[in-house]
């Protein structure tokens, strides 16, 4: 009987920890908590020189290793 109670308590502890971990992780992600941003590299077969929006300048590196920058009105 004692052994059963011990096992049940351990199981309870594990469950509490798991549930709390999931809750807090979800809360953290939903609220955009980031310690430091990271950059993800996306590899594609094809990409053009168009950069990103909402910026005054844009710098890209072509396959030959040469850098190119354009500013404002072309974007």
């Amino acid at each position: 009987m004692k052994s059963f109670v011990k096992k049940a308590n351990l199981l309870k502890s594990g469950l509490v920890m798991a549930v709390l971990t999931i809750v807090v992780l979800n809360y953290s992600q939903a609220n955009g908590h980031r310690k430091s941003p990271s950059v993800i590299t996306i590899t594609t077969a094809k990409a053009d020189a168009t950069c990103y929006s909402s910026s005054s300048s844009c710098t890209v590196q072509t396959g030959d290793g040469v850098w190119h920058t354009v500013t404002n009105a072309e974007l």
Partner: protein
Amino acid sequence: MTLKKIFAPVIGVCILFAGCNIFGDNDDINPETEFKNKQIYTIRSEEIKLAGDSILFKPFDFQIYDTLAVINDNTGEAGYSIINLKTGKLLKKFAFSGSGSSDFDINSVSMNASVDKKSTFSVVQVNSPCKVFVYKWDSLLTTAVYKPNPFYYPKHFGFLNTFLLNDSTLFGRISFSKFDNKMFGALNMSSNKLLTGIDAPNPGDDTTYSKWLKIVMDDKVKYRPGSAYEFASFSYNGATVQIFKLDQDHNFQLEFQKIYYLPLFHIIKSPNYTKPTMDPGTKSGFGSIAVTKDKIYALYNGPSLDNERNDPASNTILVYDWTGKPVEKIKLDRHCGRIAIDENNPGLLYGLCGEMNTHIVRYKINDLHH
């Protein structure tokens, strides 16, 4: 004993969370929270009436010199238009489009006054072939067709803007150089030697992020009038502030740095191109800055998200001193995309406002405290 068994897992979980710092501090700070206890001034604009020949199309940036507004407006013909603020009339265009050595790719130009010699200014063509022109104000205003000769700088780096420090030194924000995380460079125009400095403001150790960060920040850079090479840089992608000095030997010294939040981006890699693309979750920061010898006026656009930034205009100006301390907040009566102050007349703040920033307005800021 029972209590211990109940609380043990709870305490364990707390320790786990504390160890992982999972709650963490949200690193994102809205700059406006620093101005919560500061005075707010609401000011009214006075519009400069433009004559028919000086209608603006899609101005990108502008500067004020005495009674002249120099506007980076893509008219299809030239990169810049000079408008007389007293009459509203077009005085002159310069930096003409063309493929000759003295012509410009007008989509790709940036202008700044020289630091030591107020009689000159420089215009850099950011796109290849990278070249810089030093203009003399007198010659520009008195010669019918004035096209100074270009200075081609080395191809292993790119300037996004330039400030001529003296006859032989060109300082500016660099877009790339050895693909490191250095933000600024001083080029000796005789020896072509480039000294770089000021790390991109990244607290982490993700080196790939750091190297691309300087490329995507889109920061606005201004020189402190009357100083010995002191500069302020405020980013539009993310919200970061850097204030730094350059000594006589062109060593960089960071004096103040504040990271409110950083931009989020991804790198797209293909056999043809490697390029950054902004994450829709990126928040905007400062769209434009104007400076006097005592204060930095920062037009704060944030924290709207990247996909909401079709109209990067704002009516909020956060005013800092040159140590980075918040001073006061200004509310404009209209939304503006760019602001400027003539260093010789710091009592007036100008704005490019309204639809497509095609209206020039003026605000009196010298009597705010009365």
